[in-house]
């Protein structure tokens, strides 16, 4: 009997031991599958997807700091500190940092993967060119919008780390796109434009000038962050214009663009104050008129969620050339370039054509450039970086009088903070003693 039981027990144990618990479930894709060439189209698109997300959220939360927008609500609104300081980690959506880093990491991880898999073929592969360009772009976005650099869990580094990486990746992208040929001309043009911008921050003005030529980046060229009803352009989403209007977090009220659009009708900074769902309303803060942007709301329907945000353009490169001319003291060339951008610009029905700026000296040239860049790149996530760059190199103090962002630069450091999540999970970062758990609680800052 005992023997029989022992046999049965051993048999049962054997049965379980022989069971296979290996299950391959469909759906989420195993990491190894991305090593196959068939996955690279989607891999590169993933890098671009993250750039779209990062662009949208960075541009939205940076817009108030750059005074492209004013706060008119408390949900999804950026709150400025009362005294000069950094935007609080409590007031800026953590996804500004998270998505921007995801964009950089995915592009750079993709570069690593393709280098490993392709070997020497990397230098002539179109996906390599594309993912290098997106990596450069992601680094430019981080550099223009954030205060410090952190790479893959590192300690804080100077912000130029991003621009250095952007320059290097763009350089390689330009070379590989050139090797691939005509199919990657757009990739190459975008890489030139990204490198030109990065070199401005790095102080390599000659290099920027070489990149920003019409030959490298024609005026008509642009590359945009696409959106759709799934990813959604945050400027449309947060205003909730198309689907009902609720939070009304931001308004053009009391910005330069309120009066500029009123007087010129320049459709690059189009805003509206007409009814939303039948109710013309103040913003969520009582008494603040809600003047919502129409740059990304052309139709007032759900389709507007797909409004793209421009990332790179030839028009911007002409303004880069204008800036470089001013740095060389050549305000006449700058005047031509700046007014060239204004020429033929569409205006509101009934408004006269845009007038040219008259520039009679370098300082007028700088102010015109600053104004025109802020108009041309309105709500594209670029103005905050411009201001920080000009503050850092002394241009702001030396050249600017009054402008679209007249008092903002005195109120806030022109950059978005490292997220609290990064501070809490990155062992190489220390929680700064002056990094407020919440400036609202301790009374040292307020959002208004």
């Amino acid at each position: 009997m005992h023997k029989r039981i022992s046999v049965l027990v051993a048999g049962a144990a054997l049965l379980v031991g022989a069971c296979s618990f290996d299950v391959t479930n469909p759906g989420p894709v195993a990491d190894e599958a991305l090593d196959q060439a068939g996955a690279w189209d989607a891999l590169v698109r993933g890098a671009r997807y993250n750039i779209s997300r990062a662009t949208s959220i960075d541009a939205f939360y940076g817009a108030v700091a750059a005074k492209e927008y004013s706060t008119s609500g408390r949900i999804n609104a950026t709150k400025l500190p009362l005294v000069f300081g950094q935007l609080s980690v409590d007031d800026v959506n953590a996804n500004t940092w998270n998505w921007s880093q995801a964009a950089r990491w995915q592009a750079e991880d993709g570069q690593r993967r393709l280098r490993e898999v392709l070997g020497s073929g990397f230098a002539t592969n179109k996906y390599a060119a594309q993912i290098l360009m997106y990596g450069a772009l992601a680094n430019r976005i981080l550099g223009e919008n954030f205060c410090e650099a952190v790479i893959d869990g590192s300690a804080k580094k100077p912000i130029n780390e991003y621009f250095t990486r952007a320059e290097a990746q763009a350089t390689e992208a330009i070379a590989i796109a050139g090797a691939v040929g005509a199919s990657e001309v757009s990739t190459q043009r975008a890489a030139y434009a990204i490198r030109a911008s990065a070199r401005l921050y790095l102080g390599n003005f000659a290099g920027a000038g070489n990149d920003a030529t019409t030959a490298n980046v024609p005026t008509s060229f642009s590359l945009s962050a696409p959106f759709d009803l799934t990813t959604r352009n945050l400027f449309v989403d947060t205003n909730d214009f198309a689907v009902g209007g609720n939070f009304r977090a931001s308004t053009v009220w009391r910005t330069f663009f309120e009066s500029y659009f009123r007087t010129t009708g320049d459709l690059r900074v189009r805003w509206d104050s007409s009814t939303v769902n039948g109710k013309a309303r103040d913003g969520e803060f009582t008494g603040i008129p809600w003047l919502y942007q129409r740059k990304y709301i052309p139709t007032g329907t759900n389709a507007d969620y797909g409004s793209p945000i421009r990332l790179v353009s030839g028009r911007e490169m002409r303004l880069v050339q204008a800036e470089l001319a001013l740095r060389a003291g050549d305000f006449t060339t700058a005047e031509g370039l700046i007014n060239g951008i204004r020429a033929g610009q569409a205006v509101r029905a009934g408004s006269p054509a845009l007038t040219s700026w008259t520039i009679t000296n370098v300082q007028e040239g700088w102010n015109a450039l600053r104004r025109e860049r802020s108009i041309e790149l309105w709500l594209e996530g670029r103005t905050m970086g411009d201001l920080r760059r000009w503050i850092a190199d002394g241009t702001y103090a030396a050249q600017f009088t009054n402008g679209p962002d007249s008092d903002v630069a005195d109120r806030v450091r022109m950059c978005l903070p490292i997220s609290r999540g990064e501070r809490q999970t990155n062992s190489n970062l220390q929680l700064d003693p002056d990094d407020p758990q919440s400036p609202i609680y301790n009374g040292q800052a307020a959002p208004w």
Partner: protein
Amino acid sequence: MPTILAAQAGTISGKVVHEGTGAGVPAVQVSIPALKVSTLTAADGSFTLAGVRPGNYELHIIRIGFRATDVPVEVRAGQILTPEVKITEAAMALDEIVVTGTAGQARRREVGNSISQVQISDVKQPVQNLDQMLQGRTAGVVIPTGRADMGSGSAIRLRGNASLSLTSYPLIYVDGIRQTAEAYSSNNLVPNANTGTRQGGQASLLADIDPATIDRVEIVKGPAATALYGTEAAAGVIQIFTKKGVTGRTVWTFQTDQGVRAVRPWGSQPGTYYGSPGRPAGIPLPSSPGSAAIAAGTPTQACIRLADQPLIDAGLADGLAISGCHRPYHDMDPYLHKPWRQRYTLSVAGGSDAVRYFTSASGEGGDGILPLDNDLRYQFRSNVSFHPTEKLNIDISSAYSRYKYSFTGSNNGTSSLYFQVVRRPLNGPSSYDYRILDSILTQRNNVRNDRMILGATATWTPLSGMTHKLTLGYDDARSEENYLLPFNYITDRPGRISLEKSGSRSFSTDYVLSQQISLFTGLKSTLSAGGQLVQRDEDALALEGAGLPGPGEHTVSSASTFPSQAPVIARQRVITGGFLFQNMFAFKDRYFLTVGARVDGNSAFGENLGLQTYPKASASYVISDEPFWPGALGTMKLRAAYGLAGRAPGAFDAIKTWTPTLWTGGGGTAFIPRNPGNPDLAPERSREIEVGADAAVLNERLTVDFSYYDRVTSDALLQIARAPSLGNTNQQLENVGKFYNKGVELGVTGKILESAKLGIELNATLATNKSKVLEVGTATVNNVQVGQPAPVVRATKVKNMYDFVDPVFEPDSNNFYGPNLPTQTITLAPTFRFPKQVTLTLRGEYQAGHWITQGAAHFLAQRGPYGTPSCDEVYRYVPWAEYDGPPVYGPSARINTHQNIDKVNAVDRARCYRSILQSNLFTWPADFFKVREITLQAPLPFRLPRMQTAMITISGRNLFTKVSKRNRSNDPDIGNSVENLTFSFTDAVPAPAEFTVSIRATF
């Protein structure tokens, strides 16, 4: 015991009666083991065994809860015996068979852990589901009443939370077959589902088990008892045993329940002010500035709409003050119905020596509390048992249920009625004109749940003392949900439509061999060994589209765009398998020692992880069987148990993966990082020590069941955030947590008065639960904090809460309040027995020690437009719109200029006005007392032809609730969804009170 004489091929037609009361006892099994014939007594205690061969036999009388009794009979040809057998209640039935938590089966005296048992025959109250059947009856079992919305199930907790991140729902077995899941649409295959059109609760799979088919339920509450269930059993096991047929005449049972439901007031009440402790109670209500004094309860302005004048909107522009208002139903009054509900059940049971059967069919339905709520449920069950050979018994069971229901949107979403009516957001009708609000109700939310359970158990006893038991089970739960916001819907003009289908199937195989061996005199050994294999397959499909072509009936394919998510079609499989063994040593039938273990593998474990072992050991000592034990002290068993059980991670949690995302804007599919991956991912391991005693004293008039448990869960799974600069902001489950639950459970049953005409019995339970988190690694989870309860309620705090000045906040936004789950639960249930089988049962439950947060009140206070009902008493002093609080946000913040602001304390200033900072100020003590049951049962005063018994039951459920004075305006018993780890208030109406009349008759 007298011998009863009879003659050839006779009949035994007798009656089994209660020794104390003389009343007939139903459902008693009466058998003649020698002839292998048996029957059950009818409701009046009568029974008949016909065609009995002449001879001398033992009539064996057994019923759970009573002492087994043997009566010698002598049957003679042609004679009819009419014995009356008296049976006595066994307060502590040590020889009762239990099966849950043991390999094979065991007598209660042999088991070293506590096993709670609920007999349906003891449940006088008509119940609609198992949640109701178990609620407030067993120490250590917490089941919130839930929400009013149709289809919502309740969470079940046995001894608190068993996990910090996974569900704490116990394993459910039905006749040995493992239930496939906990709730419908519960698999995580559709991560973004339910975000669009669906706004409702989660339906529990337990509701598919027709309570009319349940015979009894066994509950084992922790790893000390559940080790042999292995990887999924750390949260306890509930095993449901359905009714079986018995040999004898066919018995038909018909039952109908007719009832009405109504929500009791849960909002602010007139004439009370308890918001600012420190003020003398009962101070007169102040005048509202600029208006005449307002008497308590007088409806004014905004309150007018509550006084059955739903069409008034005039003068209620945003920002207008409300004064003296009370909102007992949160303004939902016009939408709260008092629906009539019906339930019908018909079952038949019977059989012969060869085949026994039980079949039941039931139908239930009616409207719900909310305007769109309606349901219809059909349930069928059939159990057949037969003996192909003398040594082989086969039980086959099948069950099918279909539950179709419609519900009104709830929760925090634009298609939620509660949200739109109570919070009046701008992205809705935003009106007090109920004609406009009614437009929300053009939405449609239809759900159909189908459930099929098939099972077969073969029990083979080839040799004396040896049993092989093989159980095969199949459980298939499928759900189809259709949601529609029609074309031109008020919050979504283009319209929106979605379809979600989800399914969950389990195939389970269990095999156990038991062999009993006598080692030497007085010492027996019972060895059990076996294995279990469970394969669970889940699938899901979710489609959502927007932009409908116009009015009319549509499918998702009619939509022009897919706004919130790409179509999802997903499936996954999880396999769990284990080998188990157990040996029970019995000495002198009073010393028992059981040791055993289960070894498990699971497809969700990390690739570096091997099989997991869960050992167990328990001891039982029936001290009252010792010669030295004075008989006057009654019966007592001492017990101790130790065991481990686990909780497995999800199917994809261990693997590094990427998500293919359809990105139309980007021109195709994009890969984005999903799970960072953890090859070392292991199950959570819960170790529990339980000691206790069961006793019956005072001539068995008082029984006591006491347990102390100490459960420590290590390797607890927590989501660990990685540095975002590492590229993947998705968190990864890691085995970094550790926490404990400990407490005592006491169950007492006392027969205070017992006579033939009158009886009073009191059942009482007390349960405590203290939990503490010991380790969390680097996890940052707001409600899981080292040194604090698991889970804990943390929220913003005001330092100077009860000072009559502006609030000063604690610098940290997360301050300790207390545990989220009750730390003390007390139930009291007296039963009064009157002549003529009339009984009255009361049941009350008190839960205390926990805290709950009400997010909806925050949003109301912050965004208005009329403030929150939680602050209505405060608004009598300072209307909502007339004070903006401290100058925190915005240029419009006004400084304390209101003349009555000095009558409002700091915490109420912070809570009740729009400038409040954080959402968590509405954190209340969740203590409450609820009358769960008032039930009067009596025989029907008339009989129809062939009717054997007929009882009428009149019952009320949840008729009265008393909450903490500091908890303003909500019912803490609202709990949360089936799988949620925490309890919190949501934008939903609490569950209603119920009043039911039931008639049950047998033929």
